[in-house]
C-alpha cells in the first residue's frame, strides 16, 4: 500500500503493536537538557532504574546558561540545575556538552551540526522545538518530563498513531523573503492549532530549494501551529550537509545509508488526511503583531481590526491600535538567536543587512549564536566584527532571550524585534512585547529603530 514519509518513519520504529494500545516506538536519539530532565533522573533513581542506552542519549546545557560571564554569572537555581544535569550525566554515563565546552549549544542546533540527526531516525527531546530535526527526514517531536524518564529507562515511547498533513510550497522565494516568512505566512493562514495530531510533510519546489538551515527553520515552527512533527524528505541537499560531519557514517556505511535514505519519500499514490498549498512567489516578509505566532501579517500591512477576544487581548498587551502601519512600530531591543534562527546562514543573512550601518541609538541589539560551533565559524569569517562594528552585542551560545530563563530578558513594556519562535505574553520577560520575524528583518529593524521592510535596505 502506498505510504507517506511520516507513516514510513513511524512503521520503521514500531517495537510492538497491539489492538487498543498505543504503538511502542523505539527512539534512535534522545536529546536532554538541564530544564526538563532533573525530575526524570530523580524518578529513575528513586525506582532503582538506570538509563538503558546512554550511547543513544546526548545532553547539553542551553535553556538557562548565561551568554556572558560563564556559569558564575548564572543565578543560584540555574547553576543548581546545571550541576544536577552534570551529576546525572556522570552517574549514567551520558555525554554532556557543558557550558564553556567546544560543542555546547542549543540542543536543536548541535544535533544536526554533529551529524547525529540523520534521515530515518526517531528523535525525541523534552522540548517542543524538537520538530526541527524533521528537516532531515527524521521523525522528531517534543515530549514531557515523564516521557523523558520513560525514554531514559526503556529507550521506547508508547504513542498513538498520528495523521498525515501535506504542506506544498511552490515557486521561488522573492528577494528578502526567507524560510521564516514561509512558516509565518503558513501559520497566519492556518491558525495556531490546525496541525494538532498530524505529522506534517513540507514539500514542493520551494522546500527543495531551501538549504538545510532553512528547512530547519520551517520544521522548527511546526509546533507553533500545533503539529505533532514536521518533516522534509531527504535529498542531495541533506546528504551534502551531512557528509563528513563527526557522527555521519563513513565509507561503505555512508553508501548503504544513502541508498536507504533515498527510499524515505512519500509514495506517488499515498493519500494525506489534509493538504495545504502555499504560493511562495507571492510571499512578503512577515512580522507578528499579537501574542501568538498566528497573529501575523506582511510587514507592508497594518495592525488589523480585532476579530476575536484573543485579538482584543493581544492588542491591549502589545499596546497597538488597529490601522497602525506595522512599519511605524518603534522597537527597543533586537534579538537574533534561538533554535529557529541562530545558525551560520542566519547570521550571514543578518550581517549583510547591517554591514556598514549602525544600530539605531535607541535600540539595544544582541546576537546569540545557536552553538559554540556556530560562534567559532562566524568569527572565522569575520561576522562578529561586522555585528560588533554595527553596535550589536556578540554573545555566547544558548537559548537566551527566546525564553528568558537566563539574565537576557526584556524589561516590562520593552518591544523587541526577535528571530525566535514565540511571541506569547511575557515570553521574553514579564511585560515584554515580542515581534517575530526573520534574521534580515530583525537586522533591518535594529538599524532603523522600527519594524521595517528589509527590501528597502537591500
Amino acid at each position, binding site marked *: 500500500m502506498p505510504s507517506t514519509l511520516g507513516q514510513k518513519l513511524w512503521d520503521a520504529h514500531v*517495537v510492538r503493536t497491539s489492538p487498543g494500545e*498505543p504503538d*511502542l516506538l*523505539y527512539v534512535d*536519539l534522545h536529546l536532554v537538557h538541564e*530544564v*526538563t530532565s532533573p*525530575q526524570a533522573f*530523580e*524518578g529513575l533513581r528513586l*525506582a532503582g*532504574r538506570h538509563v538503558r542506552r*546512554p550511547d*543513544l542519549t546526548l545532553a547539553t546545557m542551553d535553556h*538557562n546558561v548565561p551568554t556572558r560571564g560563564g556559569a558564575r554569572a548564572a*543565578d543560584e537555581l540555574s547553576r*543548581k*540545575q546545571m550541576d*544536577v544535569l552534570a551529576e546525572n550525566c556522570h552517574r549514567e554515563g*551520558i555525554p554532556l556538552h557543558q557550558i564553556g565546552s567546544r560543542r555546547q549549544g542549543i540542543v536543536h542546533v548541535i544535533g544536526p551540526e554533529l551529524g*547525529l540527526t*540523520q534521515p530515518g*531516525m526517531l528523535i525525541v527531546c*523534552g*522540548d*517542543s522545538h524538537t520538530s526541527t530535526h524533521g528537516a532531515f527526514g527524521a521523525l522528531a517531536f*517534543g*515530549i*514531557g*518530563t*515523564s*516521557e523523558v524518564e*520513560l525514554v531514559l529507562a*526503556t*529507550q*521506547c515511547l*508508547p504513542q*498513538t498513531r498520528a495523521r498525515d498533513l501535506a504542506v506544498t510550497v511552490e515557486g521561488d522565494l522573492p528577494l528578502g523573503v526567507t524560510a521564516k516568512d514561509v512558516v509565518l505566512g503558513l501559520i497566519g493562514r492556518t491558525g*495556531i*492549532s490546525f496541525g*494538532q495530531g498530524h505529522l506534517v510533510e513540507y514539500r514542493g519546489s520551494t522546500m527543495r530549494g531551501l538549504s538545510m538551515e532553512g528547512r530547519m527553520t520551517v520544521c522548527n515552527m511546526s*509546533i507553533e501551529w*500545533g503539529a*505533532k512533527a514536521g518533516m522534509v524528505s531527504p535529498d542531495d541537499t541533506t546528504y551534502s550537509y551531512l557528509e563528513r560531519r563527526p*557522527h*555521519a557514517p563513513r565509507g561503505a556505511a555512508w553508501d*548503504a*545509508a544513502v541508498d536507504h535514505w533515498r527510499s524515505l519519500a512519500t509514495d506517488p499514490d499515498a493519500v494525506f488526511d489534509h493538504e495545504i498549498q502555499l504560493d511562495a512567489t507571492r510571499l512578503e516578509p512577515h512580522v507578528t503583531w499579537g501574542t*501568538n505566532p498566528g497573529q501575523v501579517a506582511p510587514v507592508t500591512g497594518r495592525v488589523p481590526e480585532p476579530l476575536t*477576544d*484573543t485579538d482584543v*487581548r493581544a492588542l491591549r498587551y502589545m499596546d497597538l491600535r488597529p490601522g497602525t502601519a506595522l512599519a511605524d512600530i518603534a522597537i527597543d531591543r533586537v534579538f537574533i538567536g534561538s533554535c529557529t534562527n541562530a545558525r551560520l546562514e542566519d547570521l550571514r543573512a543578518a550581517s549583510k543587512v547591517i554591514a556598514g550601518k549602525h544600530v539605531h541609538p535607541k535600540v539595544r541589539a544582541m546576537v546569540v549564536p545557536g552553538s559554540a560551533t556556530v560562534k567559532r565559524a562566524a568569527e572565522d569569517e569575520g561576522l562578529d566584527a561586522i555585528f560588533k562594528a554595527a553596535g550589536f552585542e556578540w554573545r555566547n551560545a544558548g537559548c537566551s532571550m527566546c*525564553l528568558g*530563563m537566563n539574565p537576557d530578558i526584556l524589561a516590562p513594556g520593552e518591544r523587541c524585534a526577535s528571530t525566535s519562535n*514565540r511571541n*506569547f*505574553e*511575557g*515570553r521574553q520577560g*514579564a511585560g515584554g512585547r515580542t515581534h517575530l520575524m526573520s534574521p534580515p528583518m530583525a537586522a533591518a529593524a535594529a538599524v532603523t529603530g522600527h519594524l521595517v521592510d528589509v527590501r528597502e535596505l537591500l
Partner: protein
Amino acid sequence: MLPLDQADVDTDQIIPKQFLKRIERTGYGPFLFFDWRQAEDFVLNRPEHDGATVLVTGANFGCGSSREHAPWAIRDAGFRAIVAPTFADIFKANCYKTGLLAVTLPDSQVRHLIDLASEDPAAEITVDLEKQQVRGDGFAYRFEIDAFARECLLGGLDEIGLVERHQSSISAYETQRDAWLPAVK
C-alpha cells in the same frame, strides 16, 4: 469549577519560565498563572471559586512549550480535571502522566459549563472517568478518551513498568537496527 473563558492559553502563561528552575516535581501550585494572577480580578483570585477541582476553558489549551510543569502546577493547585474543546498534543499527554484528566467536549457544551460556572459559582459537576461522562443538574455529556490513557488513569499504572514487560521485543528490535545509525560515543 473554575471558568477560564479564553482560547489558546499557552503553557508560558500556565507556569512562567522562572519557575522551571526548580528540580522538584511538586510545589508548583502557588505559581499557577503567576503573571495573570497579578491582576486582582483574575478568575483564579476570586474567592467564590476557591476549592474548584475542575478547570473549564477554551480551545487549544496548553499550546506552546512542552513543560510538564504546567500540568504539575494545575494539579498542585488542587485541580483533578480540565475540560476544553481541544488541547495541545504534548500538554494532553503530560496531563495523563500527571494524573490529571483532560476532557474534550464540543464547543457548545464547554460554553454551557463556562456560563454555568460564571453565573453560579456554587454549581457542582461530576467528571466521571469510569462512565466517561460530565454530569450536572439536568445534563450529562458523554466524552471520548483514549482507552489506554483511561486505563492508566483509573488504575494508576506505572507506565515504565508496563513498557519494561516488553523487554524481549525491545531487545529484538535493537538487534535489527541499521548498522550505520549513530551512537553518541
